[in-house]
């Protein structure tokens, strides 16, 4: 009887998952079909051809990628030492750090961008007029995810014990850093990098309001005149996010870092 009831329970769960799968997959398939401009004569790759030939496409893609790379560098340079220090030497300020990493939820991109635009009006043009101000904002957006990735990675490897074991065997702190800590942090670092990549490549709000030609801004621009082109770009964007996710999975494996890495993006 238990088996019978379990079978009924099973079908209910399966039903929900099937519905969910439909809701999530159908739009992607529809977008694909839409982008291929189905007519009575069949499918066309025109939309894709136009996009690929558009110089603005390559420029915006590359631009966003460049911003992503800078964002990753800034985030990691700031947060790797921070995460390490908090973990090893200053556990007391952990709540402070965690509060600071929750803050971007209270100050979403739409608010942050207003603050940056107004607050830094007095800065020189190479900062205010260039994309550096955008990168600076992106890093803030990335902090919660990057910190959590690194923190999870550190927690998973019990860095305290490893460091002490290494030191008791005679290692200097540089050895400890390069041979013990960084290799084990690799998963967390890569997760953080891929997360940031996905985040920046998809970011629209700050790019638009600061009037930069980011990839998402480009998609929005295309969408105003070419619906099929926008559909094609949406799929491309989705594919980029998938690649980043695969990167995270491969880097982090099944560890705690993987789970921390997967929560949410900015929209």
């Amino acid at each position, binding site marked *: *009887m*238990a*088996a019978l*009831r379990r079978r009924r329970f099973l079908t209910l769960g399966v039903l929900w998952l099937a519905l969910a799968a439909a809701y999530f997959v159908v739009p992607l398939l529809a977008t694909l079909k839409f982008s291929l401009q189905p007519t009575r004569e069949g499918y066309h790759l025109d939309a894709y051809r136009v996009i690929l030939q558009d110089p603005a496409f390559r420029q915006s893609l590359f631009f966003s990628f460049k911003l992503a790379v800078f964002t990753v560098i800034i985030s990691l340079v700031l947060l790797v030492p921070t995460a390490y220090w908090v973990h090893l030497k200053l556990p007391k300020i952990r709540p402070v750090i965690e509060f600071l990493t929750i803050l971007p939820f209270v100050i979403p991109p739409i608010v942050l961008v207003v603050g940056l635009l107004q607050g830094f009006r007095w800065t020189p043009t190479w900062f205010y007029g260039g994309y550096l101000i955008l990168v600076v904002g992106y890093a803030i957006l990335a902090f919660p995810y990057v910190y959590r990735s690194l923190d999870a990675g550190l927690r998973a490897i019990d860095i305290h014990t490893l460091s002490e074991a290494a030191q008791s065997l005679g290692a200097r702190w540089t050895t400890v850093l390069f041979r013990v800590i960084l290799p084990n942090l690799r998963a967390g670092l890569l997760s953080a990098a891929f997360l940031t990549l996905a985040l920046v490549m998809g970011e629209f709000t700050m790019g638009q309001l600061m009037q930069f030609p980011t990839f998402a801004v480009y998609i929005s621009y295309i969408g105003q005149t070419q619906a099929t082109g926008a559909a094609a770009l949406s799929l491309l964007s989705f594919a980029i996010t998938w690649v980043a996710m695969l990167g995270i999975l491969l880097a982090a494996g099944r560890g705690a870092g993987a789970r921390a890495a997967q929560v949410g993006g900015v929209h």
Partner: protein
Amino acid sequence: MPYLELRDVTKRFGNVTALDDVTFELEQGEFFSMLGPSGCGKTTALRIVAGFESPDEGAVVVDGKDLTRTPPNRRDMGMVFQAYSLFPNMTARQNVEFGLRIRKRSAEQRTDRAGELLDLVGLSAQGDRYPYQMSGGQQQRVALARALAIEPKVLLMDEPLSALDARVRVSLREEIRRIQTELGITALYVTHDQEEALSISDRVAVMNAGKPEQIAPPLEIYAEPATPFVAEFVGTMNRLEATVGDGGSVRYGGTQLGVDAVRGRPSGERVLVLVRPESVTVEPLSEGDAPAGALSGRVLSGVFLGPVTRIKVETPEQGQISADVPSATAGRFNVGASVVARFDAAHARVLDLTGE
């Protein structure tokens, strides 16, 4: 007429046969333990009785009623799990009342009954505590009270003491037995700890690879193990592979030893002679060869076990034999000392030497 039966139950998980045509019969009010190593099927059998697994073949019968198709929430059994089974959002009292609440008893009835049971397990002062505020032993006592509150037909216990400290385990198992006897409830108990099973059960089923190797009262299990597995699993046992000789004796290596149990067996048959270390005595060997009917050798090691010290003697060309000597006198047997070991002919068990 047995009260609880598992009849010809078989259960498979993929390629693995967890239970192989197993039959248990429990009398009403009996405390019956299933004992064995991990994977022997004891927990599977319990879960089948509870209704959380269905047997591929066979039936579960309680008080004459076939319950095999009944869902677990209608079997009227009380189960105590190994750990973590108390509902975390309820106090101890609310946990105990839960089954009564489901059965729509009045608030007054629930309070009375819960109070009664918390008293029975000695926790009336902790009624308003939450599980996370209690120790492991206290939690298990609440779990027991909760299972008993509904006046179940059968009490099922799945290694309820495994997650507890050694000292708590000993006192709690005695309490469980006391309560079970007082209430006269039929109990089915699963454990891998043989001391636990032997100390509180009316009967024990020693299980191995999905089948019971022996079902008997504790003393019989210990003193007369039916198979080599039971002999090995329960207590420590000396195993001597010997050949049957004449007149109630065996030849072990180069020595003739008296073993009453081989009378009637054909001469020359290979048998397994089993002797408990506490039945083996050792004496220092002064000079010359060993006296007849005893094994001579050198002390290999001495392990202090508290009241006794287990002396392991290496007998040349014959193997090893362990003997328990009172620790006070164990000083005579240093490593390397020459000793002679012997046992009473009546204290040895004999089993067929199967090719295992």
